């Protein structure tokens, strides 16, 4: 049995050999044609040309096999199953094949191991081994074939450099397109699962319902009970936590950006700015730990001493800590835009006799406003999408409340809770997570687009 890393290693060795063969070949044809200067490209490019021909077709085959191996093997094994098993409806057949695969890989099996199952697993293993051997042969044959073809093509007139560069360019274009593929992947996966969800639960209920208890829908005798997937409490909870966070982050972030860019000496700035930006580098799970184990008990005992009941997982604790996390986003973005305001504007204001604070509030901030708004919008999007802090410090109960001392839940918390258990993948419960994800994605995407647009427009204005 040959594993994929081994096959890949063989391929690598063949490509290196192909490189040297191509290079030597080019030197030979050059000496026949009247010296090195008769070659179109440097000998190394002929080597690369040969190596590419060796590696690329074989690599494509390898990838294609990796992608469809399981499907092909399963099909083949199903053909060999006893007829009564082959006649099973698709879901049961899938379960059976899962068992077969698990048995073949030496994992746990859900039921008893029957001889038929064992036989199927043996088939699976044997086919897998056989296929792997065929694959190795095919890969080697393809690589050698490519190398021979490339070698026969090498002549002084072959524009090897252009070919190699074209290949490199194609690869780079592919890399750059991954960004688009990612977005497409996000949209497709989220939209598809959400579509499945909205076939079970009407969109109106989801977006306008006020009761969120996804658990009830799991029971067989209750067909997605009306109102159990109403996401309004989640939206209000998310907005409340985000609002608290922004109430902390915007004043502190903005004021420290103003102080650091307009008042502070260079030395202070050089020390304070990195210290503030450290807040952005701390992993969110650390903030979550801090919120759950330090901030929440602190607020609770504070509230008790004032005669208030504070939930042990209050929106306030999560929001406050999230605000701290967002401070550096607001401050460094505001810092950038404040610094981009031309000095002439300030000088003009000073010349009219304004004090520094008057200059800042009446001139600089007004000129920088679009940029600051863009930065705040980015911070909002960050707060809405933040997960770990709320997962650890906000609650799970979907309360529709306006009291920040109460426990609320958020969209991200519910996504995590719905997807980290062991459920079937196509139950309404897990699909609801994707519907929430779609809402979250669309909302943050809108915010980001507006924010980026305002920031960019503003920058062009002064540059």
């Amino acid at each position, binding site marked *: 049995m040959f594993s994929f890393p081994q096959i890949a290693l063989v391929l690598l060795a063949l490509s290196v050999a192909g490189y040297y063969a191509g290079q030597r070949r080019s030197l030979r044809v050059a000496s026949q044609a009247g010296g090195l200067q008769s070659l179109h490209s440097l000998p190394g490019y002929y080597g690369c040309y040969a190596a590419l021909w060796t590696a690329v077709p074989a690599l494509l085959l390898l990838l294609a096999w990796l*992608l469809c191996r399981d499907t092909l093997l399963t099909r083949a094994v199903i053909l060999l199953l006893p007829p009564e098993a082959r006649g099973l409806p698709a879901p049961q057949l899938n379960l059976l094949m899962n068992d077969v695969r698990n048995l073949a890989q030496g994992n746990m099996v859900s039921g008893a191991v029957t001889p038929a199952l064992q036989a199927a697993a043996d088939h699976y293993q044997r086919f897998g081994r056989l296929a792997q051997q065929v694959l190795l042969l095919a890969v080697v044959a393809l690589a050698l074939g490519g190398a021979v073809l490339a070698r026969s093509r090498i002549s002084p007139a072959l524009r090897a450099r252009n070919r190699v560069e074209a290949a490199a360019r194609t690869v780079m274009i592919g890399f750059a397109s*991954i960004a688009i593929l990612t977005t497409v992947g996000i949209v497709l996966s*989220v939209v598809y699962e959400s579509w499945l969800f909205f076939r079970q639960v009407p969109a109106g209920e989801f977006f306008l319902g006020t009761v969120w208890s996804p658990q009830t829908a799991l029971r067989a005798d209750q067909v997605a009970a009306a109102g159990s997937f109403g996401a309004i409490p989640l939206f209000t909870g998310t907005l409340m936590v985000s609002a608290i966070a922004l109430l902390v982050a915007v004043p502190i972030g903005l004021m420290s950006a103003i102080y*650091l860019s307009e008042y502070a000496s260079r030395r202070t700035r050089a020390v304070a700015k990195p210290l503030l930006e450290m807040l952005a580098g701390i992993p969110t799970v650390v903030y979550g*730990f*801090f919120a759950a184990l330090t901030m929440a008990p602190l607020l609770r005992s504070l509230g008790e001493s004032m005669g208030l009941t504070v939930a042990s997982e209050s929106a306030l604790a999560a929001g406050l800590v999230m605000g701290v996390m967002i401070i550096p986003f607001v401050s460094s973005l505001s810092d950038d835009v404040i610094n981009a305001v031309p000095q002439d504007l300030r000088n003009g204001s000073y010349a009219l006799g304004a004090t520094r604070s008057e200059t800042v509030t009446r001139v600089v901030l007004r000129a920088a406003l679009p940029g600051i708004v863009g930065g705040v919008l980015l911070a909002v999007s960050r707060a809405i999408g*933040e997960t770990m802090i709320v997962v650890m410090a906000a609650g799970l109960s979907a309360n529709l409340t306006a009291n920040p001392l109460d426990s609320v839940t958020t969209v*991200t918390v519910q996504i995590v809770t719905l997807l980290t258990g062991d459920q079937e993948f196509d139950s309404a419960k897990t699909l609801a997570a994707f519907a929430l994800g779609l809402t979250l994605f669309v909302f943050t995407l809108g915010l980001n687009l507006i924010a*980026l647009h305002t920031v960019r427009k503003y920058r062009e204005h002064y540059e």
Partner: protein
Amino acid sequence: MNRRQPPASTAGQPPRTIDRINAGLARRYARERRFRRLGRLAVFTGIGFVSILFIDIFLKGHTAFRQTVIRLDIAYDPAVIDPAGSGDPAQLLRADYFGLVKQALRERFPEATDRRVLRELYRLVSQGAALTLRDQVARDPAIIGTRQSVWLLAGDDIDMLIKGHIDRFTPASSRRVSDRTLAWVDSLAAAGSIDRRFNLNFFLAGDSRQPEMAGIAGALKGSFYTLALTLLLSFPIGVGAALYLEEFAPRNRWTDLIEVNINNLAAVPSIIFGLLGLAVFINFFGVPRSTPLVGALVLTLMTLPTIIIASRSALRSVPPSIRDGALGVGASPLQTQLHHVLPLALPGMLTGTIIGMAQALGETAPLLMIGMIAFIADPPSGITDPATVLPVQIYLWADSPERAFVERTSAAIMVLLGFLVAMNLLAVMLRRKFERRW
């Protein structure tokens, strides 16, 4: 500052402008000072939060690096370890070593006879003590039949008590350890049989349900595999994409679309990437769940925008004259980039990559989605083994009810922050060393 008192205006004359200005000056200066103080306050608040966070974590976690041990006289009773006297290694591995511990505890405190009391007594020592004894016997079977004084891991409550996390002066009803246990611990301490040792186990052991035995080795290894693979994937892809977009791409709709996409992806909530990984990589392509492989794929997609943006700005900072020079002596565009521009831009690209890797190291939410949240005791031995990573381990421990996990969590956070600080320092040093002004 020359602040003049406004002269008393003479009756009948209209007030001069300068007088009105002077009248308002004191107020305006006061506002100026207030504004300035507010700014300083904001900066101090921010820095204060950083310090509070670090101090809080340190205070909670520093005790985890030392672990309480208890000395007991263990009789290596052949009747318990190897009743048949066969010396068979398999039997030696199977034997009931905790029985030896129980026996030693009964000998040490003969007054405990009641079953409930005994159960409490056995909790003085960690279940992990059995492993210590087993390893000892496996290393040297000659020890069987002798009597040795051995330092054994204390149970988590005892550990917390010794470290002062359980206050012995709270009323017994709301205390996790009873008065009886307190008396035993005091007696052991008086005999010098309680000590605190450096907690090497924390760095060498995998996860465990017993807080005193849990370590971060598995999470560290998982993080290492995941991060290494992420680096391997995202650095070449990021640099390639940046090179194309900055140096080769024509300005057209497609490249504009890519640009907008990259900027947007940088701001998409990380949990969405987790959904993508779950739906596309696991459910569609069949990449095994919970593995560093699928984790690395998701983290690659997440860090790519960071790396691409940093690499592009590094490329932009290389002056055009370098390119013109290379093109002028006959290099092809690709040769110009690879031989001249890329080496000069590389430090900047590396800095961006390190910062991206630091983000990836601290990332938790998307990894929860793709199943790296499972309880895994054995460290992974490859990229297709189920694994967990350091931040997820922190999340799991933070969720555990035992008091002793709090200090473990904080200690794991200290390790994580240590790595992050080291990576960021490396980035800063790289920038300092190679930064060039043209």
